[in-house]
């Protein structure tokens, strides 16, 4: 019998026996005694019982603990950027939906700007001081832990927290073209995503104040008495900047409320006696309150 004939007959012979001989591609396709069950498999067989993993050994448990501990420590450090997806991706039940193409992948991620704020939750609330704001950019400004010459030059500006956006914004700006830079930053608002990373927006600046020492806090309060809030500890220059901003017509950014209006929403809970807040009823309740 030729090989071709043998293959041709397989369907007929197999039918009566509930199984089929091996398909022709297999090496023993010519062996009629062999029955192969080629029913399609269930996509997810109901009888599938995955074997249970044995319990963790103390070593594994400890190293898992170390991992979690490290993760938590990093998540509380200023370099961490929070996970934020857009509302659609968040509302789907399955976070690992198949995604096709880069555009679709990028679409999942949320953009944080004034347009995407949830109006019901954006109003500062007491409990916000306990919750980390969603940080979209690592806070590089305060960190003194890097060394510039280990980074490429086009990132030096970014390192100092003085990235002005745009393709060349990472280069460090020499001297004092500070005003110009500020203007440029405002002009850059035209860039579609340029404003999704305003750090001082929302309850985020609670966080920054929290880590400061007592002396820094005093200095800040003193500074506030003299001439408004400043983050960089350079009162004169920043004052200039902010005057500029007040003059500029397009500036409706309410982060500038910081320099002292009648109603200072963001600093509402922060100035003064937050240490003395009673933990008896306040915190207990707010922890339950979700």
């Amino acid at each position, binding site marked *: 019998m030729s090989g071709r004939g043998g293959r041709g007959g397989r369907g007929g012979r197999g039918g009566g026996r509930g199984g089929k001989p091996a398909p022709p591609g297999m090496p023993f396709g010519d062996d009629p005694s*062999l029955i192969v069950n080629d029913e399609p498999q269930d996509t997810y067989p109901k009888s599938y019982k995955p074997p249970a993993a044995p319990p963790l050994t103390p070593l594994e448990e400890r190293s898992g603990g170390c991992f979690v501990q*490290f993760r938590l*420590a990093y998540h509380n450090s200023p370099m961490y950027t929070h996970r934020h997806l857009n509302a659609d991706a968040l509302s789907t039940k399955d*976070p690992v939906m198949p995604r096709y193409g880069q555009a679709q992948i*990028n679409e999942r991620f949320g953009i944080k700007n004034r347009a995407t704020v949830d109006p019901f939750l954006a109003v500062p609330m007491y409990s916000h001081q306990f919750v980390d704001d969603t940080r979209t950019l690592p806070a590089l400004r305060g960190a003194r832990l890097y060394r510039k010459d*280990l980074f490429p030059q086009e990132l030096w500006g970014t390192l100092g927290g003085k990235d002005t956006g745009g393709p060349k914004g990472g280069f460090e700006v020499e001297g004092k073209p500070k005003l110009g830079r500020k203007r440029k930053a405002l002009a850059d608002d035209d860039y579609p995503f340029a404003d999704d990373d305003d750090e001082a927006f929302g309850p985020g600046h609670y966080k920054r104040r929290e880590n400061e020492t007592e002396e820094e806090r005093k200095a800040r309060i003193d500074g506030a008495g003299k001439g408004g809030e400043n983050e960089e500890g350079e009162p004169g220059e920043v004052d200039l900047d902010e005057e500029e901003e007040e003059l500029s017509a397009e500036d409706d950014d309410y982060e500038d409320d910081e320099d002292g209006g009648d109603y200072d929403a963001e600093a509402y809970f922060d100035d003064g006696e937050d240490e003395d807040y009673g933990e008896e009823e306040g915190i207990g309740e707010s922890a339950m309150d979700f």
Partner: protein
Amino acid sequence: MLGTKSAAELCVLLIDELYGQLPSRVFAALLARGRSNVGKLVQQSSLNPKQVRHGLVVLIQQNLIFYHTDPDAPHSLYEANPSAAYNLVRVGKILDMVENQYGRTAKLLVHDVILLGQIEIAELVRHYKHEHCAQKKDSDGEVEAGHNGINGDDHTNPNHINGNGTASSATEDEYAEPEDEEVYDILAQLIASGFIESVTASTFQSPEDLRTGVEQEVMKDFPNGLRGAKQTNEFDTMVMDELKSIHGERTALKRKLQDRLDYEPNIKRRKLTNCGWANGFVATGGGSLLDEEFDTMIRLNHDKCIVELRNQKLAEHVEDIIGDTTAQVYGALLRALSKKISRCRVSGILSNEEADFLEPRVSTDDVFEHLSPSVDVSFGIGTASEDTIDIRYAEKIRRDPPQLQDPSFQDGLQEGDVVVASDDEYDETGELTNGAAVNGSRRGSKPGQNGTKVKGEDGGPLSSQRLRQMRQHLLILAESKQQFVRHCGAGQWTVDFGPLLQRVRFIELDTMIEESFGRQGLRLTRILREKGKIDDKTLPTMALMRKPDVHVKMAEMEMAGFLDVQEVPRDNNRAANRTMFFWFFDEERTLRRILDSTYKSMVRCLERLEVERRRRKNVLSVTERRDVQGKEKDMLRSDVYSEWLEFLEVEKKLLGQIGRMDDLVAILRDY
């Protein structure tokens, strides 16, 4: 090394898990596009340039990417370093291992180093004191006063985090705040042992860039190009020298500290080992040396960490196969040995240099020194009378490493058969087994340990008996089928990591095949591995199985990708019955497949973790609050608390599973 889609996904997820969304997005774009500049990354990730740059800063700070700046080009090019990203999965293991070996302070230091990525030494110590010393006082004060302000900064307190509060709280209480000097000493110790390495500008160039740069530099000496073999050789040696000097520059600090610590008087070391091997570091010298190096940048050296993890794994294997006490002796041997090993696999660039260290050896005394005094070596060995032991065989010295079984695993070991040592070559030390006094005097003759002879009356016999028993353990290891240790000279021991790990790999592979296809499948693959390619018709007789059984099994394994078949037609019309079918088992490919599916499972574990998080996001949003963190039990309502504990349980399981799969990956790929 990491070339598959699953591996890339895994890297991205790991960065997302630890370092946050922005760096992970940038890293994903880098993996997708390969080497690229900021502009391309902006296109790929639809982030704005400012964000991309911030992400890049974080990635560079955490040593996850290489970059290359061409002086003529306006932009730097960035390149992902996937193996560094993969190593993130080992953070927990590394921290735990450092704690076991060097104590808690060392662990916190390493923790800070990983946390900050790269950092100056002085800054690290400052950060260390600020974080851990201050925080301790802080949390103490809070507990006493019952005061919980918003700075719930005691997040590093492990008690409520990993859910095994009882065990860790004890150590927390005992843990005394270390002095400044001590911190520097421990840091010096860590640098000398290679866990922490110094960072130079060349660290951020990928190995290829480094080589190209050096080659271009050297090429300037040959303005007319390379002509003939002589010049090519000259060129190669010059490039190699240059690379070596760059490498030397990187390890200069390490070597300096190592020298200093090695010349410490032995007495001090002895004293310290008596109070516990975990803290058995030399207490002076390193710190003062670091004074000159305050501004050196340091980071974690993953290569060395992998060496230590390998030691741990091998000791575990010995524990499984031989026994607990022997495993501890083996652990001591590996610790002694790994001082001379800086990486598991010899990399291409440095192969020449490291060839000298290919076969490090340790002496019996050295092993003894590293053995924890609390180990009772008298367990786990039998006693046999003197005349029933063939001392010549038992103590036989094998000078040459055995050959690897499969060329695909060849790690650069030289050719050399299993040399049957001539019968008269054996270690005479063993003959002196019952002459305890003789042994004691032999030890006493060692420099730096004078006075043993005098004390020989009370201390000598005991410790020499201990030494003798430890030697027995080493002999057991040398004799075992797996050949954990090779007795390579009188009182000299070495480990042939290449062949040994190949055997370990086979064990893993066999376990996996047995789990999935049963004993028969395992039998068939072992036959194939032994014999190479086997004809379809001879296999059933060889396996002593029925032909249909064999076929079904083989088909099953072929579908799973463990086996493959080769067709060799006997004539031109390729008829099935005129064709020979050869089954074979391609090990390298099987390993690659297994690796890839392991990456995939790890990805799924991480994704599962995300699903679980989303499922309980109400609870987690509360536990993540800063006033709740660390005080969950008191702050939360009982049902919320129990739900949170459930989540921790799930998370622990998933992370444990990832850790196990990482063990597998490490065995198959890294060790």
